[in-house]
């Protein structure tokens, strides 16, 4: 793996099973430093405090549909924060409609995965983001 194994990753999803699946896949790919949040509203303060501590997250993997703060709103917060304009942000969604992709691209998403997906597809998307 060309990327550092200990790149700091935050997985955001309101479904605990999906967080576990994504974490398992990231571990299979070779990543070792993975934190998780159960909503965009939980993730955002984690992202802010990681910046204050001088150890910012280097990659966000987020679900789109979450009850309090959606992945799209989390992405918009990230992109409007100085220093995070280019933070790699992978959006995951169950809704396969083309319109969603357009909305996410306009908001500055780095790449996009439609569920269901395999570890291989996740790896390919990550490779494209970090190439």
């Amino acid at each position, binding site marked *: 793996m060309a990327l550092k194994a200990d790149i700091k990753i935050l997985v955001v999803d309101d*479904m*605990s*099973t*999906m967080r*576990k*699946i994504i974490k*398992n896949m990231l571990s299979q790919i070779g990543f070792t430093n993975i934190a998780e949040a159960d909503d965009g509203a939980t993730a955002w303060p984690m992202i802010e405090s990681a910046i204050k501590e001088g150890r910012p997250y280097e990659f966000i993997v987020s679900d789109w*549909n979450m*009850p309090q703060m959606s992945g799209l709103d989390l992405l918009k917060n990230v992109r409007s924060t100085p220093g995070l304009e280019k933070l790699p942000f992978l959006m995951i*969604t*169950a*809704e*396969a*409609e083309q319109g969603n992709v357009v909305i996410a691209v306009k908001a500055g998403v780095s790449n996009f995965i*439609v*569920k*269901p*997906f*395999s570890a291989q597809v996740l790896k390919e998307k990550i490779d494209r983001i970090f190439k």
Partner: protein
Amino acid sequence: MPGESHFIEFSKPFIDAAKNVFETMVFTKLETQKPQIKSDAVSRGDISAVLGLSGDMEKNGGRVPYKAMLVVSFPYDTYFKCASAMLGETYTSYDPEIADLGGEIVNMIMGNAKRDLKTMGYSSNMAIPSMVEGKDHTIKYPMGTHVVLIPFTTTHGTIYMEICYSEAE
């Protein structure tokens, strides 16, 4: 059955999506068994994931509202085997760690089916999935809908998908 022809076309995207979801994330193939009209409310499984859908569709040159619901029911043992396959650990009881797994499965099926429904002229808004658990539990179907039960055999056991649907006359 009112709206029967649309019911058949409406069901197909869910079958295709279920096959895709189970093959990709549960690592098992679904073999479709003969669909049946269901006339009672008792689940054929012990754990059910339920997700509502509503919207409108083209009919008689105009657009009319429809309502629908997707249910995927698992016998306990099948649910635990699916959870074990998806999460890479062995589960033998319905614990909190796997309580939302069925919800995630119906979410993915519905999300995929929505894309095909859109090309067929259906607009659709998904609700939030819920779970029902217990031997012989019942499913609360939306008023006025008809239910088709589609059993699937898998290497983890039988899975029961129900699609209920009604459209305005």
